Structures are given as structure tokens and as C-alpha cells.
């Protein structure tokens, strides 16, 4: 069997801002997958992305992209990376044509025909100033740019936030099409877990600058569950199984981290499948 190649790899990466610390972050994104990078606002998602892109310097740890260290090599490695930010970043007076002129003189693999084809596919006018674009169009423009230099890795920071469900759905379709190629990989940072549940293969969950959960999305969903029981039964549940719990006048429910064991130990309990959002909330609340 072929060995799985990691496109992104972080080992004990630390960045200390004083009031916020990214603490010994380690995770890997295997080639050909969509990795959902989730966490609440302020958890450290953009900081991690900036570290991967070598936009900011780290205090400790190792980061590799395509198997190569980003140190002193990041610019060349970025040739194969398409980046989409939560805000457009292009000047408002620029048109698609202007962006094409700029990018074809920057990227070695810039494909002019593919860029204009992408603009047509995304219904973006090439002669209109991008300042007049809606938020959805601005995000699509960034994706069009990211897809036009034959990038193998897309790194996206909250690309679907603030978009209506129709555009979000359209964008997820674009991401799905991108990962059809087996060497294409996506790191998708978002706090909209519903989108990730639909598209992600892997999940990395960051909270307060620390990775609290990482692995295959389906395995994570299968492993976790919501155990519902009477208030008085809750203390009888093994603490090692409970991530977080909530007691209301109707009863109690707990997010558990080993559904199979819980089902064996407490055959009478109702255990439902947990959604990614519930898992995220559970871990955030459990840590508080």
C-alpha cells in the first residue's frame, strides 16, 4: 500500500504574543483530503495559517509544506499554494483583467486561459472593478485566482462566512471539484461546521491556541455521541467518557468521547449521534 503523504505538517509549533499563545500545535493534512480547521473566533486559526504560509515567524516547532521545511523556502513552496482570505485583499479599482496582468507576472504556472474560464464559470465580469463585487463575488474571485496557477493545495480562511446558503453551496461544489484530482488538498478554516461536515475528510479542532481534537471526520463523528439521561443518573457516568455535560429541568445530557464503550457500559442510556458543532461546543464548554 502507498504511504500517505502529508502536504502540511506542524510539529510542536509555538507562537507567543503575550496575551495569546499558540501552544505546541501539531497536526498533519494528508494529500488528497479536505481538512476542516475548526475553532471559535480567537482560537488561533488565522495565526496558524499565517505560520504555515510563513507570513509570521514562529517561536518554536517545525512546519513542512509538501515535505519541505518552510524556512527560507516558503516563497518557492507558495507557487503550489492557493490562498483565499476572509477579505478580498485586491484593490477595489482592479478588474479581472488587471489581476490577470499582475498574476501572470508573478506565478510561473499562471494559466491565463484557465483564469478567464474560471471567471466565466463563476459568472464574474472581467471588466468590472472588483470594488463593485458582492461578498460572494469577491470570494469567488479569490478562488478563481487560487485555481488559475495550478495550485495543489488550497488554504482558505473562513471563505464561506457571511455568505448566503446558495453561494455557500456553490462554493462547496467548487471545492469538491478541486479535490477530485487526487493530489489536490484543501485546508479549510471555518467556524461554520455545517459546511465542513459536508465536505471535510479530516478535522482539526483548535481551542485557545491548543489542538484539542484531530483526525478523520467520520471517525470523530462516530466516536462521539450525546448521552441523554436523568439528572440523578449523570454522576454514575464514568468521568473519563464525559467531555462536557449539561443539566436542565428535563434531564441531563453529556457529550461523550467513546460511544461504543458507553453503549456497552450503559445499555439503557439513549446515545445519539453528535454533530460537529455539538462536539465543538462540548469541547469549548468542557474546557471552561
Amino acid at each position, binding site marked *: 500500500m502507498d504511504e500517505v503523504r502529508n502536504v502540511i505538517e506542524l510539529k510542536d509549533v509555538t507562537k507567543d504574543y503575550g496575551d495569546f499563545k499558540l501552544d505546541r500545535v501539531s497536526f498533519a493534512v494528508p494529500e488528497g483530503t479536505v481538512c476542516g480547521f475548526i475553532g471559535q473566533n480567537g482560537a488561533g486559526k488565522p495565526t496558524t495559517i499565517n505560520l504555515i504560509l510563513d*507570513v509570521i515567524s514562529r517561536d518554536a516547532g517545525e512546519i513542512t509544506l509538501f515535505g519541505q521545511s518552510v524556512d527560507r523556502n516558503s*516563497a518557492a513552496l507558495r507557487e503550489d499554494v492557493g490562498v483565499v482570505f476572509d477579505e478580498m485583499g485586491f484593490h477595489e479599482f482592479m478588474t479581472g483583467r488587471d489581476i490577470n496582468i499582475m498574476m501572470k*507576472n508573478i506565478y510561473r504556472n499562471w494559466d491565463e486561459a484557465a483564469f478567464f474560464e474560471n471567471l466565466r464559470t463563476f459568472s464574474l465580469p472581467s471588466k468590472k472593478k472588483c470594488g463593485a463585487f458582492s461578498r460572494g463575488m469577491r470570494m469567488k474571485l479569490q478562488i478563481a485566482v487560487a485555481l488559475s496557477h495550478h495550485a495543489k493545495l488550497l488554504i482558505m480562511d473562513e471563505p464561506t462566512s457571511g455568505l448566503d446558503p446558495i453561494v455557500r453551496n456553490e462554493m462547496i461544489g467548487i471545492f469538491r471539484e478541486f479535490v477530485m484530482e487526487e493530489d489536490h488538498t484543501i485546508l479549510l478554516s471555518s467556524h461554520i461546521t455545517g459546511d465542513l461536515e459536508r465536505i471535510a475528510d479530516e478535522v482539526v479542532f483548535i481551542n485557545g491556541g491548543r489542538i484539542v481534537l484531530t483526525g478523520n471526520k467520520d471517525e470523530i463523528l462516530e466516536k462521539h455521541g450525546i448521552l441523554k439521561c436523568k439528572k440523578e443518573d449523570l454522576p454514575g457516568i464514568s468521568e473519563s467518557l464525559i467531555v462536557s455535560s449539561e443539566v436542565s429541568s428535563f434531564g441531563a445530557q453529556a457529550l461523550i468521547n467513546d460511544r461504543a464503550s458507553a453503549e456497552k457500559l450503559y445499555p439503557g442510556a439513549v446515545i445519539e449521534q453528535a454533530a460537529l458543532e455539538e462536539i465543538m461546543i462540548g469541547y469549548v464548554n468542557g474546557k471552561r
Partner: protein
Amino acid sequence: MKGLILKDLMCLKKQLTTFVYVMAGTVVISILYVLSTRYGNLARVGEQLLDQNNGMSRVDVKNLGSEAMVLFMFLPIVCVGDLMNVFVADGKAGFYKVSSSLPVPLYKRVLARFLTIYTLFGLGVLVDALLAVLLCSMTDIMSLGQFLGVIFSGASILSIYSALMILYCVLLGYGREQYAQVLALLTMAAAFVIIKFDSVRFFVVHVLGDGVGFDSSVFWKPLDFIREKGYVLLGIAALVSVCSYLLSVRIAERKRGVI
């Protein structure tokens, strides 16, 4: 890197349009000026100044004429060579995020900004040189060599200013471009005072103060310098640009995300 220079030039599209108008205006006014110094009212004023026995020589009158020509030569370069709008536009758009995700190393991103300014000065110098050829065929106020000296002096002074402005913009970050402009001007003024301390003190104490040291050469010395010794300023400009570039790269490397 070429793409970033093109992007910077796109940011200056409006400024370049203004440059065309300024250039057209400068050509018209300077031709009218030259014709007037030869055949019109300015020629008559020159003759009157010589007749008044106020100590002015023919050289002084000619130098007076040159002062105006220097202004005409400086105008297009001043108009074309202001990079502030690029920093303002980049800051407003948040372009630093995009630029730091591009496959362009930091030192090239900084270099692109310096090359933008030299491209603009190159354009200004070229257009000015064509104007100089035209003007020196119509007047003997300045020779072509002196015209070129003035043009290169102007471009050198402004490129010193621009190099310092880029350095301060990188140091202070986006949104503080006006402070960078003021600091660049103050640095240049301070450097001038330190280098020419004796001359400045003499000018302030004797020429502006008691008037004892007044001599027309006080005014014509700087004029002679920029007409005849433009290469000195060019050398200083090259040195300042290299130092400013190296410092800017170092600061940008430490701060990250400022260019």
C-alpha cells in the same frame, strides 16, 4: 516581482494621468517663459535690472532666469514620483495579506517598491530630457549639460526622499504614510543642516540676520551646484537608496506583514 511593480503602477494610474497634464502644462509654460525672456516682457525686465545700477551683473540676471527653469524641470519629477498613494491603496485593500501569500520572497517585495519609484523617476527624467532638448535649442539661459544636471539633481533629491519614505512606511506600518512623509522631509533637512552647518549658520546669522554677509553668490552657489554637480547628488541618492533598501528588508523581515 514584475507583477508587483505593475500593480503599483496601476495604483498610480490617476497620478500618471495628472502627470500627463502637468507635463503638457510645463511644456507650454516653459516655452512661453523662454520666448518671453528672449523677446518679451521678461527680456525687458532683465535689461531694466541691468540699467538700474543695483550691483546686478548679466550673470545674475541669467541666473535669475535659470531659477525659473529649474522649477520647470523639477515639476514633472515631483508630480510623478510620489509613492504615498501606493502605500495608502495597499493598506486600504489589505493587499499585504495577498502579497505575503504570493511566491515572491520578502526582499523582492521590498525591491519591487523601490523599482517602482525608479521606473517613475526614469519616466520623469526621460520626458524632462526631451523638454530640455527643446528648450536649450531656444535659449542660452542654460546649456543642455546644465539642463541635464538640473534634471538628475531633481530626480536624485526626490529619490532620496522616496527611499526614506519607503523606509519609514515599512517602519511605521500601514495607515501612517503621512507621518512617514514628514519624517522623510525632516531627515533630509536635518542631514542638510548637519552637512552644511557652517553655510546654514552663515546664511541665518548674516544674510537673514544683520545683512552684512549678503552677496548674490550665496544664492547662486546652490544653483551652480545642481547645474554642474548633479553627479554628487546622484551618488548620494544611490547610497541612501541601498541603505534604505537593506534597512527596509531587515525591518520587514522582523515585523512581517507590512509590505
